[in-house]
């Protein structure tokens, strides 16, 4: 080597994150992972809905069998789990809404709390309307 540099002048230590388990190292990251994972449970519900439509297309007997499965404890437990993650998705989504959409009313920007509160209220109203439609 002809180039002389002071010993280790440029030696730095680069910490490495575990590419798979990094999120276990901070509670906020665990919460983030759960939030992202909620989409998997929502997708499971959508897949079950496709299966429901498939069973319906196959006729009354197939549909009755599909409904019978839904009454098993396994299915109820699965749906309780899906519901928990769906609620996690909805609450995180609406609480983050004010960060994404800045709402201006009469030239002044609304507070984050007001926007999130509005979104959560809208969710409650929509849920009530859907319940009324489905059960009515």
């Amino acid at each position, binding site marked *: 080597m002809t180039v002389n540099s002071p010993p280790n002048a440029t030696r730095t230590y680069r910490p490495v994150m575990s590419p798979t388990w990094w999120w276990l190292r901070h509670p906020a990251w665990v919460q983030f992972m759960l939030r992202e994972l909620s989409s998997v449970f929502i997708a499971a519900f959508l897949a079950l809905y496709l299966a429901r439509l498939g069973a319906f297309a196959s006729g009354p007997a197939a549909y009755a069998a599909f*409904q019978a499965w839904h009454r098993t404890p396994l299915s109820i437990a699965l749906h309780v789990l899906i519901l928990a993650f769906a609620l996690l998705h909805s609450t995180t989504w609406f609480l983050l809404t004010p960060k994404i959409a800045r709402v201006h009313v009469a030239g002044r920007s609304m507070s984050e709390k007001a926007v999130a509160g509005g979104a959560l209220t809208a969710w409650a109203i929509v849920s009530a309307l859907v319940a009324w439609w489905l059960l009515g």
Partner: protein
Amino acid sequence: MAHASRSEPFWWSLFAAGGVVAAFLVPIHVLLEGIVGPLGGPTPAADYDRMHAWLASPFTRVYLFVLISLPLFHWAHRFRFTLADLGLSRFGAWLAVLCYGAAIVGTALAAWLLITAP
């Protein structure tokens, strides 16, 4: 030199729209059709005849199409990034094909089932 992505805004828009639909609609559907209904509550999905009457309305069919398809893209987008962040980022392009592909197949299936439903 970096350049503005042409595909990401498209997938992100579907993700955002699907996230909104899922946030508003999925919990109440899971509660009523997955838990309350099977435990004896009256929902259209509870038996074949009621489902038949419910699906007779075109509004129901369009509604169910939106309920299923957009949140599938929401899942696809999040899942793609989650897998990349769990150590699979070197398969980035494949993850995109796999995830969005599954959402496209699911959407096509939903369309077909809802169009042909008796």
